[in-house]
């Protein structure tokens, strides 16, 4: 599979210290274009830290990050978004009081009118939101002016994923997207993830529920105590038991 094309994202020798805590130990990770990678590991294994580094939310102590072969310096979430990395955090991706349309465009609002007296182009934002909702398959007829607070958990995830797809993020990072969701809603989210891949987006999928991960990913990466201990587990050739053993460190090593 080792093509000559540069990977979409490559992290090289990433180290991260929180004070004296060594949270990431020499992490190397490559994500190819159009690939869904499951990131697994127990609590405290370093998954979140890795994701925060990649999304620009926390600075790394040393190492390099390349996007499309170009070295980048991610100092803020804005840098990451500008580099095409969209992170959907569990429960904290959306503003419950704001409408779907306003949430979709938060931070990148469409505006009209002259520079100083400009205002939100709410009509166009609603228009885009409505067509987007249809595309991600929210079947119920939900007007885009509905507040996020009155949506179900699955619908919220759908909105967050729709947002990442609309803004053509190359890499969508999903942090526990299936937590607290019902069966049907989980299936919906997994379907969106596949759809995102089919339209050329890469995904990093973090979930505690290994069954969900198995249903959707191309490859699994396992972290333990700040290190990547396995990075090429295929859901086709490995069993859930194998993966669990690697996560807990009970396999012969």
């Amino acid at each position, binding site marked *: 599979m080792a093509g000559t094309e540069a990977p979409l994202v490559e992290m090289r020798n990433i180290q991260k210290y929180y004070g004296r805590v060594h949270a990431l130990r020499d992490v190397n990770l490559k994500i190819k274009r159009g690939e869904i990678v499951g990131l697994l590991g127990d609590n405290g294994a370093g998954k979140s830290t890795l994701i925060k580094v990649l999304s620009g939310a926390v600075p790394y102590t040393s190492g390099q990050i390349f996007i499309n072969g170009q070295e980048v310096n991610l100092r803020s*979430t*804005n840098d990451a978004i500008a580099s095409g990395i969209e992170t959907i*955090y569990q429960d*904290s991706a959306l*503003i419950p*009081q704001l409408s779907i349309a306003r949430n979709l465009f938060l*931070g990148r*609002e469409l505006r009209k009118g002259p520079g100083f007296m400009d205002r*939100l182009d709410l009509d166009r934002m609603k228009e885009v939101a409505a067509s987007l909702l249809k595309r991600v398959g929210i079947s119920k007829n939900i007007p885009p002016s509905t507040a996020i*607070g009155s949506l179900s958990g699955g619908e919220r995830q759908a909105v967050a994923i729709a947002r990442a797809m609309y803004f053509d993020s190359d890499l969508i990072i999903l942090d526990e997207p299936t937590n607290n969701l019902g069966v049907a809603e989980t299936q919906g989210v997994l379907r969106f993830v596949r759809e995102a891949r089919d339209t050329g987006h890469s995904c990093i999928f973090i979930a505690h529920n290994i069954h969900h991960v198995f249903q959707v990913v191309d490859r699994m990466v396992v972290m333990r105590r700040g290190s990547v201990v396995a990075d090429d587990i295929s859901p086709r050739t490995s069993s859930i038991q194998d993966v669990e053993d690697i996560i807990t460190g009970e396999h012969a090593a």
Partner: protein
Amino acid sequence: MTEPSPTMAPPEPAMAAGLTRTLINKPEVGPLVLLVIMLVVFTAINPAFVSITNIGNALTFTVELGLIALAMTLLMTAGEFDLSVGSVFGFSPVVMWTLFNEAALPLPVAFLAAILVALVIGLVNGLFVTRLRIPSFLVTLGMLLVVRGTALWLTDGFPQRTWKADDQWLSKVLVGDFYIGSLRVYMSLIWFILLAVLFHYVLTRTRFGNWIQATGGNPVAARNRGVPTARVKTALFMLSAAMSAFAGIISSIRVSAANPNSGTGYELEVIAMVVIGGTALAGGRGTIIGTVLGVLILRLMRNGIVLIGVPGLAYNIFIGAIILGMMALHAALERRHNAGD
């Protein structure tokens, strides 16, 4: 901007049951109903309540607190509040009139200097809250004491003279009066209406307004989306202080005295106006229309209670009851809203 403000539209007594479904999501409805009931009850007991003179008088005093309430609405929507507004209200005119009387600066320069000092006060509030992550309750409580203390120390506790202000164009622009028919209108009311329209527009139609709501609604998500939440909050603290200064200066010209003690306790009355109007104390949801209604409710209540013969000292009982009642109503509406589809 000269079109009649939507916030000042006469309350419609339309309360058809069919409307409740759509109105339930609008936090302004509760205060609107309350205002209508108040108007009806007060007028029934004492018809003088709706007289031109009385309404005109009530509106004059209303706007000084109202100006602060407008800024407080934006700040509370962003999830913070400011207890130092009352002390800035008292302190800024002292600064302005001291500069005018002692340093012989032209009035407009003294005015700008006072506003600038207020902006610095707001900036310090904002930096303490956003950089040091101290809750705004503590920061602005500390600032309240510092600012009030400074005002008292500068003046030895005595009011500053302002009565040389009559022939100044600035004082005419700020508090001059004119007549519409037999209704005496102060310029400060015009300022209030203009600013209410502007703030409503900013909150609901601009990107900054979107950021204000996002900052109060879910700060972590807002930051993840690249919204500069710290800068939004700091800007709003500065706005809150500047509006308090503006209101304090207007008040000092109107009563011809810059009393270092004026504005004491205003912070709580302003916050009461804002929450009665339907702005969430926890942030994320705010309404300028509601705040205008809240301002009218508290002021007309104070006025009406006296007119219908309730002892003025009982005023606070009613205010407290209204706050509790409105909170219960908003909580109930919120629950119903979330339970709905």
